[in-house]
């Protein structure tokens, strides 16, 4: 936590929820906002009202942003989590990204809709008592994504990094060529 204008603001991945992390990602992806507006919207989201910045100098504002961006530690990939007596597992020994999971993630990433991060995690984490078919049904993915949004962001970020790296390495970038008319 950092104190911004007298308010306790979560800034560490272990303090932010996946939902908050997704909202912050959405704000930063909004190209209609400039850098200052983005930071103000993030602070508003986390409990610092926009009006509180009215009398704050730009130097003070920069310092607040610096404090907020100061992250400690690098979370590891968590193989599983528990929720309501169910176990959701992404891997046992070593994390592998299967073709099936990648196809589903590809679909989610392509749509870039709000909440795609939790849906991506919902594809990776599978409830141990369910079958392969049930893992990927739309309704079940949505339900898991809802559960994941309440978890802390330190479960999500390592997967985002890992999956991003694997996809960047494995997915061909060449686009199909066409006869040009």
């Amino acid at each position: 936590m950092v104190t911004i204008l007298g308010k306790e603001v979560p800034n560490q991945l272990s303090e932010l929820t996946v939902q908050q992390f997704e909202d912050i990602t959405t704000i930063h992806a909004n190209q209609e906002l400039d850098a200052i507006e983005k930071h103000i919207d993030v602070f508003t989201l986390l409990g610092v009202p926009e009006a509180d910045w009215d009398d704050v100098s730009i130097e003070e504002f920069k310092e607040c942003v610096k404090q907020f961006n100061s992250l400690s530690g690098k979370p590891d990939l968590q193989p599983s989590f528990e929720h309501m007596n169910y176990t959701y597992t992404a891997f046992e020994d070593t994390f592998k990204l299967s073709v099936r999971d990648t196809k589903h993630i590809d679909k989610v990433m392509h749509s870039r809709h709000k909440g795609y991060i939790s849906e991506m995690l919902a594809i990776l984490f599978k409830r141990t008592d369910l079958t392969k078919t049930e893992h990927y049904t739309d309704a079940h993915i949505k339900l898991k994504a809802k559960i994941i949004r309440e978890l802390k962001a330190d479960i999500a970020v390592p997967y985002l990094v890992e999956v991003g790296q694997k996809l960047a390495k494995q997915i061909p970038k060449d686009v199909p060529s066409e006869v040009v008319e």
Partner: protein
Amino acid sequence: MYLPKSWSEIDVLQFKEIRELYSIQEVFTREIEILSALADIPSDDLEDLDISEVSEMLAKITFINSEPSKNYKHTIGEYHYKPLNTLTVGEFIDLEHYFSKDYNQHVGHIASIIYRKVMTNEWGETVYEPYEFKPSIRYSVFDEVCINDVYGILPEYLAYRESFMTTYANLFTDEDGSDEDEDEVPVTSDEAKAVALKKSEKKWGWERLIYSLCNEDLTKFNEVTNLSLIMTFNMLGMKKELNV
């Protein structure tokens, strides 16, 4: 699992199947579907693999991101390449039809118009079979032909078409000189009627042309469609320029 190494191992039917998969928006999914089509195995069989394993396979089929050879063959079995400058009006209209759709999906239809049976007449000249067959029936003859043997006719036709359209540009523009492809947004109801009429004229463009060339005598339809394309458009150009 055997994977082809280049387009030289792909036939027209497989090419069409692969090109159809290009419409899949998600890059990874598209690559997997193409991989399974080339390996001739269901994509489900690949789904339990780790992506690092399939990436090795994908690396072997990078040729799919390039075009097949443009050096087409002049003879395919009993079919011979018919030079584009000998196209008839009917052949051109049908080629335009297939090119206006997804021409990659109509390689066989296009090839069946451009490759024809031949015979030698009593003067020792090569005579091409008349265009009295339906490409929609004959196209399958080319299904098992290597795509490299016929693909080049596509860019060649497109280049020919561009040159043709430039030469006869005045026949493809309206009286006011505007391009027929121009999109107009009507403001008044009269303008809306004019746009609707223009669209209708465009829809029936070739039929109108043939009907006019037949002097409104439909029994001459085949005679007109068998006319040389270049001769016909030369005459139309002359008529327009001299206003006769």
